[in-house]
């Protein structure tokens, strides 16, 4: 065991050279490489952090925007619902009003039709009734209705002779109005009867198509009517009662 001092010096030189060489080719490149890589990683991490912050900011922005849009959407939907309800109510009210108006029109129309029908029915009924009466009177008694009226009127006027003369006063003309012209026999009968009651009065015959069948005598301020108006009115009243009973029974 000995120490070779030349070898010691050579080994010291070798060791110092090795320190320098390893520092040059091992430690510095490796450590610098690690530092550079760490710096690169730090830079990327920082970039990633920045990107994440931006992404979070964008996310928050979009989330706020979404919330705002949802709020606006709710408001729009509520407003649209309210407007649609108002529109629906208005349309319903309008439709209801139109319906009521149409119902009223329809009822009015029905009433008009009913009235027209009833009046037509009454008129045709009364006409038919009058025709049947005329026919029955002609067939059974060989007499016209006007002749029968004139004859019957003569018998009814005799008790009223005084009242009639009093009502005639100073009148010189008596007017007999019928709907249709009277037959000649009836005219003569009427003239002879009136001459007995009012000898000073002349008699004049007129027609009025608007008048009911029968006879109306006007002298001075007096008027004696002998028409079928009351019968027609009674016929109408009975017909109305019958129709009312039918309609209520149907309801």
């Amino acid at each position, binding site marked *: 065991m000995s120490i070779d001092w030349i*070898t010691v010096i050579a080994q010291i030189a070798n060791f110092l050279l090795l320190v320098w060489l*390893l520092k040059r080719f091992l430690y510095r490149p490796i450590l610098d*490489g690690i530092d550079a890589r760490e710096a690169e990683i730090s830079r990327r991490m920082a970039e990633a952090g920045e990107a994440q912050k931006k992404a979070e900011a964008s996310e928050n922005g979009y989330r706020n925007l979404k919330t705002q849009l949802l709020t606006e959407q709710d408001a729009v939907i509520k407003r649209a619902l309210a407007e649609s309800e108002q529109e629906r109510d208005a349309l319903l009210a309008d439709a209801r009003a139109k319906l009521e108006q149409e119902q009223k029109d329809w009822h009015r129309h029905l009433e008009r039709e009913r009235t027209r029908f009833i009046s037509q029915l009454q008129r045709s009924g009364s006409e038919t009734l009058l025709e049947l009466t005329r026919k029955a009177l002609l067939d059974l008694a060989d007499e016209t209705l006007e002749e029968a009226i004139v004859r019957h009127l003569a018998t009814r006027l005799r008790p009223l002779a005084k009242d009639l003369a009093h009502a005639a006063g100073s009148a010189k003309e008596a007017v007999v109005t019928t709907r249709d012209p009277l037959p000649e026999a009836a005219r003569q009968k009427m003239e002879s009867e009136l001459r007995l009651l009012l000898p000073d009065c002349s008699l004049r015959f007129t027609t009025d198509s608007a008048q009911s069948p029968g006879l109306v005598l006007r002298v001075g301020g007096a008027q004696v009517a002998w028409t079928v108006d009351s019968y027609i009115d009674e016929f109408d009243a009975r017909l109305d009662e019958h129709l009312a009973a039918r309609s209520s029974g149907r309801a």
Partner: protein
Amino acid sequence: MQLTPDDIILLRIWGFPLNATIVNTWIIMALLVGISMIVTRNLRADVPPNRWRTALEVIVQSIQTQIEEITRKSARHVMYFAGTLFLFIALSNLLLVVPGFLPPTASLSTTAALAFSVLVAVPLFGIASGGLVRYLRRYIEPSAIMLPFNIIGEFSRGISLAIRLYGNVMSGAVIAAILLSVAPFFFPVVMNMLGLLTGLIQAYIFSILATVYISSATAESESSGIREYSIPHQSHPPRSGEEQR
């Protein structure tokens, strides 16, 4: 029996004898530098490291971590010195398994050279860290009476480093040689395997002690004489004021 490779003269250059210690040292240096040059060329930060570079990074970072745990600060110059010590001694001891290769650390001249390097490096790092006056003041602390003892202690540390490394490596080689003559088949293999383990441990101890001495010198220079450093431990974090060597 050949105890040291210093006595093996391999060649002479201009009459200057080159023994096995120097030549084997050059081989180890060539291996270390060559591998480092091959691996660390064309390094780029944006390219992922390959397996060789990763292995070197693991080694270098382990060394750096160990040294920083002792010095408690980033000390690249200490790492250049102590790391080279570790790599040189470790590779030298590992090459013990190569037949016919005599590790340079089995030479007392080599270990003495390494110990002398540490002996010189400690005051140099101390002076570089805190200045010449502050470094020299530590020899007369706590009183001037301690001056000779501190000087003796300083030199005895270097001598113990050298003897410890030489003794361990040389004893492994000697034991292997003895066992080879006694039982040439099985025991030398076992002893060589044991030699690998002790060789790595010796490299670790030598470089760690060098780091501790340097750290001690720089810490004293910086903290006015308070000796506080620690031996790194693998499983526990270093404790302040731990055992001093």
